[in-house]
């Protein structure tokens, strides 16, 4: 039997056509190509002092979009690197004055009112938060406007300031209730975004209510419970047992965060509607957790190689004696002949190699498997209504994701 992705895709399309209206999603991307793509574009980005990052982002997105195939038809990313560059330049023109002046004034204020610069950093963080939410919404709007499926555009209606205000309000509520209303925030913000999302001329709707997400915080509560039980144990002097308990609690907390993210997404997706079309998402939180743990562990292991090399070079730059002392005479002799500037060059290169390798490794071992898991878990029901959907007009969105880019919002994928 032919098991190449292409043949499988063909077989899947035929099978789905026989079944009728339920479309499952295929994922055809493999690790090695995305590793290469991320690494090579990363090198180009460093060599161009960051300029190539707009191309990198575009190319990586094109790759992922083309690998995700609901109903056997790949998504298409039509975003353009030039428009990203342009959007970024526009954002720089606008934000240059804002960021520079605001930062300086905050520093001045903290000089005159407080005794240090910590207050200034805290203040400047608070000053940026609303723009941060604003930029996130704008970036999402840009990505959706440049995503197509079966030739039709997605879209997100304008509403970035409304989103920023709501996000601030919900964060406030979440903080004063010590996190108990976090699921409510997740639901409300997702509903705000989903209700403004379009596919062609059809608007999406988020059904359900926030209470359906409430129990997704159960692992957080369990972590809290274990920690609370450990306090009297610690008080009773059973230190090793208490430490074990706290470690368990920490592990539960990390798992809880993963569980929360996966489970809320599942439940929210299950209640999304596009006309008579419904979505269904089936993902096991434990598998996501395992991918995160094993993927990061593997990446750390491999990225440790250039990091070790970097450390050796760094010590070498500090002094040759250090190396001899820690018993690395051989290394020291190899490097002894090298010119000092060549050493500096090597150090700089391995510094960038660490970052590049890390981003490419996590792409191959974390981002890809998780995207694959989500993609394969997604089914579209009621697909017979698809042909009735018509194209929507183009959203020009001239500043692209410039604000998000300039503010490091990390719209990433």
């Amino acid at each position, binding site marked *: 039997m032919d098991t190449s*992705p*292409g043949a499988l*895709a*063909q077989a899947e399309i035929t099978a789905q056509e026989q079944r009728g209206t339920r479309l499952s999603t295929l994922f*055809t991307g493999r690790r090695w190509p*995305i590793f290469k*793509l991320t690494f090579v574009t*990363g090198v180009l*980005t460093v060599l161009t*002092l*960051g300029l190539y990052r707009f191309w990198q982002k575009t190319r990586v997105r*094109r*790759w*992922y979009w*083309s*690998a995700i195939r609901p109903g056997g038809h*790949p998504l*298409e990313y039509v*975003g*353009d690197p030039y*428009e990203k*560059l*342009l959007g970024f*330049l*526009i954002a*720089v*023109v606008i*934000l*240059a*004055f804002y*960021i*520079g*002046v605001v*930062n*300086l004034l*905050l*520093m*001045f204020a903290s*000089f*005159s009112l407080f*005794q240090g*610069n910590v207050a200034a950093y805290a203040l400047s963080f608070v000053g940026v938060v609303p723009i941060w939410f604003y930029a996130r919404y704008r970036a999402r709007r840009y990505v959706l406007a*440049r995503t197509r*499926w*079966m*030739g*039709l555009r997605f879209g997100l209606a304008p509403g970035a300031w409304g989103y920023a205000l709501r996000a601030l309000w919900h964060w406030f509520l979440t903080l004063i209730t010590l996190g108990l209303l976090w699921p409510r925030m997740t639901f409300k913000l997702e509903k705000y975004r989903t209700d403004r999302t379009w*596919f062609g001329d059809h608007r999406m709707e988020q059904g359900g209510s926030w209470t359906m997400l409430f129990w997704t915080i159960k692992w957080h509560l369990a972590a809290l419970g274990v920690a609370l039980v450990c306090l009297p144990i610690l008080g009773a002097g059973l230190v090793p047992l208490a430490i074990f308990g706290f470690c368990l609690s920490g592990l539960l907390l990390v798992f809880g965060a993963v569980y929360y993210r996966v489970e809320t997404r599942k439940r929210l997706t299950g209640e999304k509607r596009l006309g008579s079309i419904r979505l269904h998402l089936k993902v096991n939180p434990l598998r996501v957790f395992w991918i995160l743990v094993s993927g990061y562990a593997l990446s750390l292991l491999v990225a440790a190689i250039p990091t070790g090399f970097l450390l050796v070079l760094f010590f070498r730059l500090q002094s040759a004696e250090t190396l001899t002392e820690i018993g690395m005479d051989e290394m020291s002799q190899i490097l002894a002949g090298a010119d000092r500037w060549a050493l500096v060059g090597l150090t700089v290169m391995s510094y960038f190699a*660490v*970052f*590049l390798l890390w981003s490419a490794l996590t792409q191959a071992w974390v981002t890809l498997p998780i995207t694959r898991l989500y993609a394969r878990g997604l089914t579209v029901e009621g697909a017979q209504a698809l042909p*009735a*959907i*018509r*194209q929507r007009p*183009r959203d020009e969105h001239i500043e692209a994701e410039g604000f998000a*880019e*300039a503010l*490091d919002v*990390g719209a990433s994928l």
Partner: protein
Amino acid sequence: MQKTEAQFFDGLTAGRHDVHVALSDDRQAMIITGDTLPEPLRWTLMDLRALSDTGHTDRLTLTRHAETDDEAPRDPARLVLLDPELIAWMHRTRPGLFRADMHKGTWRKIGIYTGGAVAAAGLMLFVILPAMANTLAQIIPIEREIAFGKVVVRQMERVLGSGSGSLRCTDPAGIAALDKMVTRLTETREMQYQISSQVFDHGMVNAFAAPGGQVVVLRGLLEAAESPEEVAGVLAHEIGHVESRDATRHALRTAGSAGLLTMIIGDFSGGAAIALVGEKLMTAAYSREAEAAADLFALDMLQQADVSADGFARFFDELDDLQGIEIPAYLSTHPITADRADQARDFAREQSGTRPILSDAEWRALQNICR
């Protein structure tokens, strides 16, 4: 090219058309026919483009180069080829298949906005931020500046000592000698700031001025110096920084320019390092002026206090020897030391009636301040 099955999306609805493609009789175009298409379509081979950077090789998605208002000048319709032979044939015969087309005027727009961004950033970095920093540095109340300076000194202490307690050297005789030196330098002139000086137990040959009149000398400098006049020269130089509020100005300006540079360089792998180098270059440009001004201030101060500038010159000579790696002038925060040494030596030659700043015993006490 045989008549082959393919999928067609018209870019108007989400419906899929099952079509056949074949080469036209004049072999210049691809003819797309299908039951669900109102009429056969003719796509000129010259205009054919394919989607690039896809994660698969089992299919080729074609589109057409056309003047549309899309992101790229492309027809929104898509033709998906699945037949391996046809895909191979397309790759073989159409070298321009993956060409990236651009709308007319894209470069002009990019040029204009690059100009705008460079102008905005330049205006901020070289005109607005320095001007604001200068003005604001003048209106910060002095007691606030002193409080902030103390925080900075504490931070420096932590950084230099890697967090291991106080570095402050406390030998009373040494402190008395240092204070005597400062008094001799400052008593003959009008001072804006009360200078408070101290020595840190650290081997680096360096000294620095924090906001609000705090001057810190590191032990390494005292050990490297051959005479108290060398230390006096350095102290006078740092007092010059204090009097012109360089540290405060610098902190204010950096707050603005660092934020701006990180924004421009962005968050790509290791980008923070490039932003850091950029900020260093900026700082270097400013500090060279500030350093030159502080040198002149120091010479003037030495002159008024009847201290020979010879020591100051000798300190630069030693610094020159110490710098193992030749730092290019534009990277260094200080003007080339040989030039500074010559300047101080020329100045010393004109001086007359100088007297020693410390006695031998006091000088030994100062050198042993950390014992």
